[in-house]
C-alpha cells in the first residue's frame, strides 16, 4: 500500500528492471498567459516492461494527456519521453509514424477500426502498412485467444461493440509491440464485454510478457492491472501495486475528497 512518487526506475513485483516507456519531468501546457492550461506539471513515470499498468485520475487530471505524449501522439512542452532506448521527444513525423507502426500498439475507446476493412484486415493493418508479413503462428494464437476465429471476414458494422474492441486488441497485440496503450478500452462496453476485453489484456501480459499501459477511470478495470499510477491536476499523486477494485475505489475517494 505504498503511495510514493517515484522518479527512479524500480523493479516490479515480477523482477523486471527494464522500463518499456519512461517520462522524465514531462511538462505539457496548452495556450499562453492567463488562459494557459497546465495539463502535465513535471511528471516522471516509468512503465515497466512486461507489466500491466493502469493510469487513473478524475477528469482533468491529465491521464489521457500523459498517455498521448508517452505514445508519441502529442508533443511535450518540456521534459523527455523515452520508448525503450529511443528519445521520442524530438522525433519528426516520419519517425513518429514508424514508431507507432512498428513499436507501439493502440486501443482507443471507440472508432478503433477502419469500417471498410474486414476484421482480419484490420488486425493486419499496421503490418500491411509496414510492408511486413505477419507471423502467422502468432496471429493464429491471438485470434484464438480473443475468440474471433469465426468473425474474421466480417466488417466492423457487422460486429458488436465488444467484438469490435476485441478486434482492436488483437490488432494491437498482433505486431508484438514494445508497449500497448489503451485509452479507456472498456468505456463504451457493457460489463460483460468489458470484462472479456480486460481478461484478454491480462492474459497477454501473463502469457507473453506484453507491456500494457491503460488509462481508465473505472476501478474495476484498474483492478486487473499490476500497478496503478494516480494522477491529479497534472501530477502523480499516488502509486499502488497489486491493486484491487475496492482499494482503488477507496483511494479515488480520498483523492477527490
Amino acid at each position, binding site marked *: 500500500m505504498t503511495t510514493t512518487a517515484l522518479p527512479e526506475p524500480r523493479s516490479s513485483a515480477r523482477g523486471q528492471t527494464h522500463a518499456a516507456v519512461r517520462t522524465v519531468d514531462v511538462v505539457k501546457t496548452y495556450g499562453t498567459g492567463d488562459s494557459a492550461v497546465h495539463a502535465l506539471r513535471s511528471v516522471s513515470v516509468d512503465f515497466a516492461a512486461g507489466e500491466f499498468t493502469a493510469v487513473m485520475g478524475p477528469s482533468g487530471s491529465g491521464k*489521457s494527456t500523459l498517455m*498521448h505524449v508517452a505514445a508519441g*501522439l*502529442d508533443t511535450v512542452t518540456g521534459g523527455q519521453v523515452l520508448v525503450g532506448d529511443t528519445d521520442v521527444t524530438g522525433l519528426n*513525423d*516520419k519517425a513518429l*509514424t*514508424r514508431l*507507432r*507502426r*512498428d513499436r507501439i500498439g*493502440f486501443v*482507443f475507446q471507440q*472508432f*478503433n*477500426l*477502419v*469500417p*471498410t*476493412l474486414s476484421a482480419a*484486415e484490420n488486425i493486419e*493493418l*499496421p503490418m*500491411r*502498412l*509496414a*510492408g511486413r508479413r505477419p507471423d502467422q503462428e502468432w496471429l493464429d494464437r491471438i485470434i484464438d485467444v480473443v475468440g474471433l476465429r469465426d468473425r474474421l471476414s466480417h466488417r466492423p458494422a457487422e460486429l458488436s461493440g465488444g467484438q469490435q474492441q476485441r478486434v482492436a486488441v488483437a*490488432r494491437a497485440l498482433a505486431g508484438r509491440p514494445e508497449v500497448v496503450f489503451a485509452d479507456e478500452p472498456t468505456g463504451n462496453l457493457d460489463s460483460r464485454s468489458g470484462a472479456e476485453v480486460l481478461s484478454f489484456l491480462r492474459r497477454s501480459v501473463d502469457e507473453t510478457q506484453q507491456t500494457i499501459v491503460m488509462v481508465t477511470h473505472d476501478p474495476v478495470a484498474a483492478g486487473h492491472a499490476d500497478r496503478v499510477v494516480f494522477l491529479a491536476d497534472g501530477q502523480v499523486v499516488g502509486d499502488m501495486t497489486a491493486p484491487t477494485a475496492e482499494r482503488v475505489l477507496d483511494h479515488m475517494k480520498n483523492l477527490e475528497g
Partner: protein
Amino acid sequence: MLALTLRGLATHKRRLASTVIAILLGVAFMAGSMVFTDTMRATLSGVYTDAEQGTDALVRGPSTIEGFAGTLHQPVPEAVADEVALVSGVERVAPRVEGYAQVVGPDGKAVDDISMGAAPAGMAWTDAAELNPFELTTGRGPRAADEVVVDKSLADEADLAPGDPTTVLTAAGPAEVTVVGVARFGSADNRAGNRTVLFTLDTAQRLLGRDGQVDSIAVQAAPGVSQAEVASAIRSRLGTGAEGLDVVTGAALDAENAGRGNEDADFFAVFMKIFAGVALLVGAFIINNTFVILVAQRTRELALLRAIGASAKQVRRSVAVEALVIGGLASGLGLLAGVGVAQGIQALWRSAGVTLPEGPLVIKASSLGIAFALGVGVTLLSALLPARRAAKVAPVAVMRSVAVERTRPSKVRVGLGVLLAVVSAGTLVTGFVGGELPLVLIGTLAGFVGTAVLSPVLARPVVRVISAPLPRIAGMRGRLARENALRNPRRTAATASALMIGVALVGGITVFAASGKWSVSHSFDKEFRGDLVADTGAWIYGGASPRMAEDLDALPEVAAAVPTQMTEAEVGDSVTQLGGWPAATVGRAFDIGVSSGSLDGLGRDGIALGSRWADGHDLALGDTLPVVFPGGARQTFTVRALFDHPDWTGPVWVDRSAFAAAQPGQLDTRVYLTGADGVGATALRSAVEGVTTAYASVEVQDRDEVRQSVVDEFNAMLGVVYALLALAIVIALVGIGNTIALSVVERTRELGLLRAVGMSRAHLRGMVRWEAALIAVYGTVLGLLIGLGIGRALVYAIKASGIETAETVVPVGQLALIVALAGASGVVAAVLPARRAARLDVLDAVSST
C-alpha cells in the same frame, strides 16, 4: 434563424468555396456567350446602319432567290440610274456595283481565306460622300482605271498604303492596280468581315462582270423630302410593276440589314448557348452533390435545431437561404468574369479562322440579368432536394452518431433509368435525322439524366472492375481507396456524374470527328480518279477564270483537266447548291456511279441528281425541274441521270455549258487533273504550277495534301469545341475535389486512426488521390460509353442526310488517352484535399467527437 444561417455560412467559408467556383464558372460562361452574341448582333447590324446613314432610298433589280446569305437581286441596266437622277425630290444618285475581287498580298497569296465564310468583294467608289458608306482615312478616291481604294482591314493585313501597287483577282482576270486611298466602312475596319476594294464605276463594271449594268442605285433625297416621299416618287416614275424593279427606303434597308445580321449571329448564339447550358448543367450536378453532403454532415446540427423547436419549414428555408446567398454571390462574381469570357470567346473563334466583325463589347442589362437569374435559379433548384431531406431529419438523430447508409438500389430507380436511356436514344436519333435541334437537345438531356439516375446502380460493379488491379499496384493505399469509393456508391456516382457529362460530349465529338475524317478521306480515295487538284478555296463566291482550266488542259503533261463551278440556286421548291461539271469528262475526275440514265445526253437542258437526293425530293428519271439562278436566269431542266456517289460532285449539277449560259462570267472553283501516261508526279506538278501561279488564290494539292486539309479543317473545329468543353470538365473536376474534401472532413476519425496505427502522411495523401482518380475514371468510362452513343448517332444522322460513305470509326487510342487524362485530372483535383487530410493532427482526429 436567418442570423444562424448566415453565421454558419461565414464559418464554413472554405467548404463552400468550390461550390461558389462551380456556379461562378457556369454563370461566367453563360454571361460571356450572351455578351458575345449581343456584340455580334449589334456589330453586324450596326455596321450597316452606321455606314448607310445617308442613303434615303435604294433602287435594285427584282429578287431572284433567297440565297444562303440573304435575298439576291438581278442587276439593273445602267440607264436606270440616269432616269432616277431626274426624278424630282432626288438630290443625287450613286450607282453601286458589287462582285468578286480579291487582293493579292505581298507574299503572292490572296488575302483572306474565302472558304471560311468571308466574301472578298470589289465595289464602285462614289464621290458623293452622303451615299458612300466608306469613309477615307487617308489618300483619295480612285479616278483612273488602275486606281483603287482598299478598306482598312485589307490595308493592315496586306500592308498597303497610298502609292503601293498591288494585284486584284477578279472575274475578268487579275488586274494590276495602285492603291490611292484607305477607307473605313462607317466606323468599322471592314464591311462586316468582308474585305472590300473599290474601283471607279467604269472599272468596277468591267472587272466585276457588270458591263452596262449596275447592282443597285443609292439615292439621296433633296432637303425637306422624306424617305417615303422620294421612294414613291421614284416608283411612280419607273413604274415598278412592269419592270419588276424594287425600291426600298433607307429605313427598310436598315431593317433588312439588321435582320441579316441577326441571322448570322444566330448560328453563334445557338452554338454558344448549348455550351453555356452544358456548363450550367454540370454546375447543377456539383451544387446538388455539395448540398447533399453538407446536409448529411450537419445532420446532428439540424437535428439539434429540430429538437429545440425549429419547424421543418424553418430548417428547409434555412438551407434554401444558404443556397440563395451562395448562388447570388457566385452569380454576381460570374457576371464580372463573364466579360472576360466574352473576349476569350472572340479570340477563340478568330483563332479558328472565322472572320468576326470588330467592335466594342455590347453589354446588355437583360442578358446579364438572365445569366444571373439562371445561376441563382440553378443553385436553388439543386439545393431543393437536399433541403427537403434536411427538413426531414428527426430530432432524435442528435443522439445517434453514425449516418445511416442506404443499401439496395430501388427498382424504381433502375426502371426509370432504363426508360430514360431508351427515350434518349430514340429522340436523339430522330432529332438528328430530321434535323430537329430541340429533339436533339431533349434526347441528350434525357440521356444524361438517365445515366445519372442509373449511375449509383452501376457504380459498385463498374468501380469494382476498374479498381481491381489497384490493391496490387498501390498496396494498402489502393485497397483503402477502392473500398472508400465503393462504400457510398450514391456519392461516388453523383460526383462522377458531372465529369461524365463533359467527357460524354468530348467523347462523342471525338468519335464523330474521327469518323468524319476517316469517311471523308476514304470517300475521296475511293472516288477520286485523278492525281492533282487545283483548289481556289472558293465555294459559291469567287474562284479562278475558266481560262486557267483551258491552259491546264493544253499542257502536254495533263491528260484531263476537269473544272467545276458552283452556285446557289432555287431548284424545284428549295434553295440548294448547284454545280456545273463538264458531263463528258467528269468521270475522269470522279467515279460517281451513274445508276440510271446517262451523262452522254445531258446537254444544255439536262440535270444530274444523286439517287438519294432524288428519292428524298420525289424525283425520277425524266421528270422536269424548274431552276432559278441567282443572276435571274430561269430554266427548266430534265432529269437525265441518277448517280450513287454524290459526295464530291454534289447531288445536283448541270452540264458546264448550261451553267455558263445561265451564269455568264462565273468562275471555276476547282480543277481536277489527271497526268498523262508516263508523266511522273513531280513533272506533272511543276507543269501545273507553272500555269496556276498566275492565279494567286490557287493551291495545288495531291491526294495526301487533300486528305490533310480535310483533317486540318476538322481539327480546327475540334479545337474550338474542345476549348468550350474544357470549361465543363474543369467545373466537374472542381466538383470532384470538392466532394473528396468534404468526405475527408467526414472521415476525420478514421483518418486519424490510420495515422495512429502508422500510416505515413505520404501514404494517406496517396490513398486520397487514388480515390479521386477512381471516381474520375469511373465518370470517364461512363461518359465515354455515352459519348460513343452520341458519336454514333451523329454519324448515322450524317449518313441519313446524304453523305453516303459515313462510317463510325472509334479512335481507341484517343479514347484511351482521354481516360488516362481523366484519371490524372482527378488526382490533380484531389491534391489540396489530400494534403489537408495528411496534415490532420493525429490527436485531434483520434479524439474528435
